[in-house]
């Protein structure tokens, strides 16, 4: 489904383009509504092996697991498909949303006792601007526009918004860019794939005995 109604357009993430610069994080924090607190983060995938990083931002699920698991009914999806932060009077900071989101996005602010998350830069996108993160992203890992625009710009890849986490199927408002021929992102954590896909930790080093106790910061 496409939620490009009214002034709103679609959000695309191309993980392979991420260069780890955290410009999205820096810019998100500048928003008037959340005053220095970013609603996006950049994760390092396996820093011991590779500089690969990925921007992690709300995918705005069609059937949001966070909202479905909220016992206080504090998380709402609006008519534009945007899933908003928890409503302050209702949120009981129970962490259900944090635990249930398959993407690991919602986070409870333990001072405010409130779940805050990306609302697709509602104050910008509702007046036809791009979200801050997708405006500044220097590598194009984050893109805001129409499917037609991204198809014309990036003929080597295509957007998908269907996910499978084990038995849970999810459709998201945000898309990820994948090679042609891929129609679904599968994260199947059954026993077999766990055993074949997880990289084992590197063997404990120290072939020579340290002359004295190791020092750390």
């Amino acid at each position, binding site marked *: 489904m496409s939620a490009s109604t009214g002034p709103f357009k679609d959000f695309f993430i191309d993980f392979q383009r991420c*260069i780890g610069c955290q410009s999205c994080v820096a810019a998100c924090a500048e928003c008037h509504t959340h005053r*220095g607190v970013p609603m996006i983060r950049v994760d390092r995938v396996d820093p011991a092996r590779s*500089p690969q990083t990925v921007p992690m931002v709300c995918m705005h699920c069609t059937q949001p697991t966070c909202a479905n698991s909220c016992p206080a009914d504090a998380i709402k999806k609006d008519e534009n498909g945007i899933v908003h932060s928890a409503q302050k009077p209702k949120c009981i900071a129970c962490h259900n949303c944090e635990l249930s989101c398959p993407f690991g996005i919602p986070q409870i602010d333990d001072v405010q006792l409130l779940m805050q998350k990306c609302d697709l830069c509602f104050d910008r996108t509702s007046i036809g601007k791009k979200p801050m993160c997708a405006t*500044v*992203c*220097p590598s194009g890992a984050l893109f805001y526009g129409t499917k037609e625009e991204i198809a014309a710009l990036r003929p080597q890849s295509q957007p998908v918004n269907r996910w499978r986490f084990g038995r849970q199927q999810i459709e998201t408002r945000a898309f990820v860019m994948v090679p042609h021929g891929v129609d679904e992102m599968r994260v199947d954590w059954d026993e077999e794939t766990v055993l074949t896909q997880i990289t084992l930790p590197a063997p404990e*080093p120290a072939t020579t005995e340290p002359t004295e106790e190791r020092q*750390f910061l």
Partner: protein
Amino acid sequence: MAKLTLPIDEYIRLYGPHISDSPVSGWENKPEPEKLVKTHCCFCGMQCGIQLAVSNNRVIGFEPWEEFPFNEGRLCPKGVKRYMQSNHPDRLTDPLIRTAHGFRKASWDEALDLVVSKLQSIQQKHGNNAFAMMSGVSLTTEKSYLVGKFARLALRTANLDYNGRFCMVSAGGGNKKAFGIDRTANSWVDIPKAEVVWIAGSNVSECFPTLNHYIWRARDCGAKLVVVDPRVTPIARTADLHLAIRPGSDSALNQAILHELIAHGDVNQAFVDQYCTGWEELRDSVATCTPEWAAEICGIDADLIRQAAHLWGGAKTSFLLHARGIEQHTKGVENVLSNINLVLATGRIGREGCGYGTITGQGNGQGGREHGHKCDQLPGNRDIENPEHRAYICKVWGITDEELPHKGKTAVELFEAVDTGEIRGMLNICCNPAVSHPDTNFLRSCLEKLEFFCVIDFFMSETARYADVVLPGSLHEEEEGTSTSAEGRVCRIRAAVPPPGNAWTDTAILLEIARRLGREQYFPYTDNEQIFNELRVASHGGTADYYGITWKRIEEEMGVFWPCPEMGHPGTPRLFEDLKSYHPDGKFHLYPTPYRPSYEMPDKDYPFWLTSGRSVFHYLSGTQTRRIKFLVDKFPGPVCEMHPALAQRLGFVDRQLVVVETRRGQIVVPLQVTEAIREDTLFIPYHWSEKLAVNQLTVRALDPISKMPEFKTAACRVRAATAAEAERLRSDYKNLRIEAGTV
């Protein structure tokens, strides 16, 4: 004498760096901006367009400038948070004079009287050239031109040089030899049209984040990417071919690539014969440079070299980019020429999708290096020893040839002359050699020998701590002017706010010193546009010709590419479209670049390679970025990258504190164990000072042509830190994160 009169910790307590993390208004009371000022980022040669949000004469935030064609709103985190340098608590707002215990505030009159009297006394006793000037290319082009004229006509010294000597002079040297002009040959719009993008020695993703978009646009169209780098940088991670060569082996690699191009008939013989000189000599010079020969020197597989040669040889269009990784060597110019040879041998230059360029590192690294900022240069990239060039500039400046000094010393030579007593005094603007000079322990000893040292800066840099007088100058957002981006586009820098407190603009300071030296007749400017208009005339007829560029045109056209020799000329985004170089013979010049070892090669005492570079979160010597909390949080201090195989062999673990040592000094750093680096090479970024400066370890050896120091290779060894060393590092690290207002 220029000496520290306080403990380092005390300078930090008084003047920072402190970290600051909110707009001057605070987050809660942040007002709506009264205006958005369209200008450019003060960091790096991309010169991204940005809008600064201003309220009540204060910069309170930013807004992307999506209409600016190069970056269309895209920014790196330094650009996003840059506005926090404005109104920073560490900002210098009064002239300072050194006392027996630090500094005291002084009036401008007192401070400038002292500067002028010391300057005159040194010059009377030891000659005009005993007083030197060091400058930098974060300055606008107007200020760079002014510094060039100021040093020659107000200070009347030959000894002016600039921090580009630590940055990309080898690229300029190579470009001038091959092309007769020092500029990237194409605008970046040719990158997405290339079939192969070749990046040699540039961590594009961290040093030039917004350029990544152009590389990815090429890949969106199916382009192949080749990256030559000892590290798996974020851009190298995605490359089709990553040639992780040993630091300093670039010319050997390129000789072998050329050998393969010749062997497989991939040389554009018609182009080489018609438009180049030196082909036979170059061809013969690589006759024995097989991939196996190079593989031995470069420490990579010969087949990988063949694959890269095949990819390059078979392309119809291409763009070759390089940066400091190949340039900061004692053979930097040769490395540059060896890359240019690959471009010229295939004839892929001067047309759509066929490009070449060095990626200029500093904000105005391009514009600032064209108009007399260098010790051997006059405006328009003229040669200070060329009689015709001198005559033209003498006419523009209204002086005789006798009044125009000749070639002075280059940056490192200049400090070496301080060491020997030949140079006694120095004025330093926009440069922090205490961090950015190689072999900083030597550099500090030179600063201590200066009889008089004056620094113009907006923060108390580690260099300024040594000054007798510190004059508070202006930030980028406090003065009108222009800069020229790495693609040769002249951009308008706008003043968003005036300098705060008693701070003056850099221009006002230089003009006032000139006046007090009785030289005001040469500096009759009432605004910076007049300086630009004089520069236009002074550059006219030189290779870097700005004559047809006006501030108004830059604003209306969102930048103009030089050369632009006449009014109404459209500017020149792509050089060499007529397949002519800027040499008198119009030919592209090929030069053999036989591989030779670096100044220092690993041996049994110092068995590993040490290389240095940048982090995406910091800019140059860190004077600005080490004061912004977001950037410091993300990358607080130096770390040393080491491959796990080497770490295991040496018995080290991730995050362990180690001591990396060279023949010049040592640094205590936490290890970052990662497979993203060669097993024989260590990497440490360079943005920090004193005991945290990797430049304590680097060598002062220079490229014979460009006089560029060899920042990119040194022989090092490594051992575990002792408890005492670790304790000191913890204290130094703690000092990096002192929040403003907490002391």
